[in-house]
């Protein structure tokens, strides 16, 4: 084969490009983008990284919820209403029981008291 193995020839050609020498990072991204399979592979890695980041945020964030039964809400001024910080996992558990509702004021209300048992059935 003239000029040696095709892989080697490609390597030689790419090294003579100006971008390969001066902007190795940009050139590397360009090389990734040149073929569809490489784009797909790149997107897969981005998706896996994004999933990891989302799970990391989700596992460590807390949500502020009003922890007072709805009927007692009016008895307390807003500043004195008990507030609870729950994890997103706890929020997921609560929604499976219909335990969280959105208030008109924009806040989130837990429908059962800390001392009470949550509902046993999903409201749907």
């Amino acid at each position: 084969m003239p000029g040696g193995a095709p892989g080697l020839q490609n390597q030689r050609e790419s090294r003579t490009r100006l971008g390969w020498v001066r902007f190795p990072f940009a050139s590397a991204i360009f090389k990734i983008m040149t073929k569809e399979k490489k784009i797909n592979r790149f997107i897969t890695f981005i998706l896996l990284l994004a999933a990891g980041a989302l799970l990391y945020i989700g596992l460590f964030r807390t949500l502020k919820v009003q922890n007072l039964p709805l009927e007692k809400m009016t008895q307390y001024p807003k500043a004195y209403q008990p507030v609870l910080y729950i994890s997103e996992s706890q929020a997921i558990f609560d929604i499976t029981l219909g335990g969280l509702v959105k208030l008109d004021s924009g806040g989130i209300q837990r429908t059962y008291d800390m001392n009470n048992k949550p509902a046993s059935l999903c409201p749907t």
Partner: protein
Amino acid sequence: MTKKTSLIEKLTANRLWIQTAFLIIWLDPMALRLHSVCGTVFHCYACPLATFACPVGILVNFSALHLFPFIAVGTLVLVGAILGGFVCGYLCPFGLLQDLAAKIPVRKFNLPQWFGSIRYFVLLAFVLAIPFLWGENHPLTFCKICPSGALEGAVPNMLAQAVKGQTVIFPNTLKITVFGITIIGMVFVNRFWCKLCPLGAIFGLFNKFSVFFLKLDPAVCTNCQVCHKSCKIGIKPNLESNHTNCIRCLDCTKCKPKAISIGNIFKNQNAD
């Protein structure tokens, strides 16, 4: 090469058994009730035997609460980016139900390919937009019309109420109607609900970009079109092997030249 082929053959031959094995996991045999953990399949958490929380239910309720569901989206992206449509073909309990219903010997009908796009409308409208705009109690919120909720949540709970002598609370008319249409549909159309499933819509988006994908070898493919006939979803796998509607049942790998196989991104292979 021989090893890979035999793995695919084993998977396709034992698909119902694999689905049944996963069904046991979803049906909470250890009574763990891990409802704070986001599941990856279409299985309602109102089911008395649900192990995990339904991801679609989480999306609906978080949308209603105006919160971004980091864990649910992260879980779906992670599983989708690894497996893509394999979740629908091998893991989903509602998919198993449909596969069993499809075994009833009646004439099967094919729906046009565009019908599968309706699920994106279902995802955007009933799962995200309506709960976000009008709250979780809106009658068109997805959980209020979900056939999985009707089958796995409402029916067992109604039975429990009847057994206990309590007043039986029926689900709303729309939910019963959707459930009825789904049950009839899954008998006459292969994987009828998959064409409307919002979770399948999410996983379908990952088909082209997942770690494991369907790999077509154009040098081997003779265009015998056996894969066209074997595909129950109605895709032409040798033309679009990683179509968004594909549930990756791997029936298309049964052609004689073995042109379609499972590829992964770690090997230097082309995704069609």
